[in-house]
């Protein structure tokens, strides 16, 4: 069997499974899996760039995804004029002061001669800068958050079409990746891993606590949508007439139409990114990346600037994750910082990349769909299994109740099991690197 045939068969298998769940449950569920599968595939593409092409160990995917989600709010929501008047300028001034402090500290560090004076000067700049920053920033935050806290209490966004947020999400993530990469790349792989893990936690902490930015744990709901609302479709005579003519219930049809519209948008993004990734991977640049991954010393001897190339691909991969994050928040229609969990948004994406086949873009996409399908499917299957196992037990026994209640946690175990099995028996993944 040629590698291409194998890939096509595997894709057919996964879509067959999803279609099967459509017949068995509902098309709504199946389309839901497809939509999140598309987003997962894009995240996996991003991680695959970093890990598969270049061997960078990034376990801060969640942070970049969340930044993409923030972009959806900052771009899509209407601005809150009152909040801007209350403290917008103060906030911007505070942030500018903070950035200036860090810049001044770095400049001083670079310009001054090595020694105790330099260390003291940098420390003094940082300490003074921090207190000035807090003095300007804190009152502004208070003012902004006091504006109608139940409904807004934040600055709002730019009020632009939400589709603009997708590239902006990529840019935000890229900016964060640049800052992290500048400091942490060039360190050993485990150190980079811990650094990215930390930065992801910090980004989530910022999203949870900086209410002026994205309302924190109060969540931003009702993001504008790039597709029509179900209710509008149901109220549209033309839509109802057509669906009735086809013999479909208009209410069910409306939600399926909306999901299909999202799927269409996501497919376009995935297709563009996949095409670009393939082009990049098969270009001299892609071969150089793999050369660096396989033997850094040799690549360096050939005159390749390893640290710069690493920074480049780290930024690109993170940007792709940011785009996926913005898309996901758009699909959800809300930003809920409390729901970002590393197991779900970082490590699950890693399972996708490893299972699909690291270094192969199609492998990453396949992994995205397959693992997401399993993630969704394992829960009801686990419950069925538990119901079967416990069917012989007496009703009301504590063991039965416990087993049934705990079935939902099976899926973490299953994901780990899949990862370990793939690493053991097929370490190059389902569609190995060509």
């Amino acid at each position, binding site marked *: 069997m040629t590698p291409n045939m194998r890939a096509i068969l595997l894709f057919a298998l996964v879509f067959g499974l999803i279609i099967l769940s459509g017949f068995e449950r509902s098309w709504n569920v199946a389309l839901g899996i497809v939509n999140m599968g598309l987003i997962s595939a894009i995240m996996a593409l991003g991680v695959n760039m970093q890990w598969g092409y270049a*061997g960078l*160990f990034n*376990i801060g995917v969640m942070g970049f995804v969340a930044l993409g989600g923030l972009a959806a709010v900052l771009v899509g929501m209407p601005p809150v004029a009152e909040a801007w008047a209350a403290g917008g300028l103060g906030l911007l001034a505070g942030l500018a002061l903070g950035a200036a402090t860090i810049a001044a500290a770095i400049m001083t560090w670079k310009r001054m001669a090595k020694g105790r004076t330099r260390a003291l000067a940098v420390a003094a700049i940082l300490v003074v800068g*921090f207190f000035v920053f807090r003095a300007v920033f*804190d009152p502004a935050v208070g003012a902004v958050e006091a504006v109608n806290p139940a409904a807004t209490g934040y600055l709002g966004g730019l009020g632009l079409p939400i589709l603009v947020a997708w590239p902006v999400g990529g840019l935000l993530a890229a900016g964060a990746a640049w800052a992290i990469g500048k*400091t*942490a790349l060039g*360190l*050993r*792989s*485990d*150190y980079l*891993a*811990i*650094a990215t*893990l*930390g*930065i992801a*936690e*910090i980004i989530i*902490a910022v999203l*949870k*606590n900086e209410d002026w930015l994205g309302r924190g744990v109060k969540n931003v709901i009702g993001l504008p949508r790039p597709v029509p609302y179900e209710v509008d479709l149901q109220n549209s005579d033309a839509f109802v007439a057509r669906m009735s003519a086809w013999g479909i219930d208009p209410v069910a049809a409306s939600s399926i139409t909306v999901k299909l519209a999202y799927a269409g948008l996501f497919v376009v993004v995935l297709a563009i990114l996949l095409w670009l990734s393939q082009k990049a991977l098969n270009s001299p640049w892609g071969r150089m990346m793999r050369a660096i991954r396989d033997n850094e010393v040799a690549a360096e001897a050939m005159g390749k600037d390893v640290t710069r190339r690493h920074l480049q691909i780290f930024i690109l991969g993170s940007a792709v994750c940011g785009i996926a994050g913005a898309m996901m928040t758009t699909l959800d229609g809300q930003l809920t910082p409390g729901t970002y*969990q*590393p*197991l779900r948004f970082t*490590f699950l994406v*890693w*399972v996708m990349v*490893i299972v699909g086949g690291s270094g192969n873009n199609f492998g990453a996409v396949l992994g995205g769909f397959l693992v997401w399908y399993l993630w969704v499917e394992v829960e009801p299957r686990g419950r069925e299994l538990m119901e079967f196992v416990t069917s012989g037990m007496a009703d009301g026994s504590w063991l039965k109740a416990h087993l049934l*209640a*705990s079935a939902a*946690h*099976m*899926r*973490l*175990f*299953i*994901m*780990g*099991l899949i*990862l*370990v099995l793939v*690493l*053991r028996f097929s*370490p190059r993944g389902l569609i190995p690197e060509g």
Partner: protein
Amino acid sequence: MDLLNALVALTNFVIIPATAYGAQLALGALGVTLIYGILRFSNFAHGDTMAFGAMVTILATWWLQGMGVSLGPLPTALLALPIGIVVTALLLLGTDRVIYSFYREQKAKPVVLVIVSMGVMFMMNGLVRFIIGPDDQRFDDGARFIINARDFREMTGLDEGLVFRTSQGLTIVTAVIVCALLFWFLNHTRTGKSMRAYSDNEDLALLSGINPERVVAITWIIVAALATVAGVLYGLDKTFKPFTYFQLLLPIFASAIVGGLGSPLGAIVGGFVIAFSEVTVTYAWKKVITYLWPGDWAPDGLVQLLSTDYKFAVSFVILVIVLLFRPTGIFKGKAV
């Protein structure tokens, strides 16, 4: 100005909690650093190993409590601890046999083992949630306080109360005992010396007839003991919730790296560095400053440098600073 009250407030809110937390981090970081030294990879499943050990101990504690066993003023969990250690050691040895040993024989790159440990992390996390559920569990009993605020005030006549909880005292004492035992073992027993030799230079150690599988097995057993003790102490001091243990991974790794990966002494120092910085940076200094300031002035705000929600940021920043200026950590660690 009131130096004594300021000192008491400082001890109460900074020194005691930070020492207890530092001891917990140090025990966790010791496990990470030992695995790194002997098995040569960063074990991401360590947080969940701690959760597993704590979980087994909790179940054993409940069983003991159900039988009416108690240690008087001390928590029953201490009696259950050996059970937790044994079960965790069996689990880790089993994981090693079934999963890790294959990659050791293959001489796989360390990063592959890290990814494998991610899979193990998922499985352990799932297992713990499956058995005990994702919610908070309380299992402390016995006397809650060694010193409570009112007694302290009556005893000393100061305005400020000092609270010293049993769990904090227990944490510190246990950590000291465990560390002393560990260092005695590593420095004075034949097995411990062979472990250090294996960690320093694998080839030379093999040449001199050290059995690698034995060294690895003993490492896992020690790691199981450290992780269980750390997990139980953390659970007694704060609360047991599987997800918090996963989140402890960051400060624990920060401690191990700051101290120098592979260096046991570094792990202990790193744990306290991280814990003290976290607590001092997120503590609201208003009270202490008010006591110390001559005259009747009090600061307007809380004088809190960072809100407690950003405590991860502290361990992270220290980690980055140490990595930038001293990439192998305070005590020279090793690099795979």
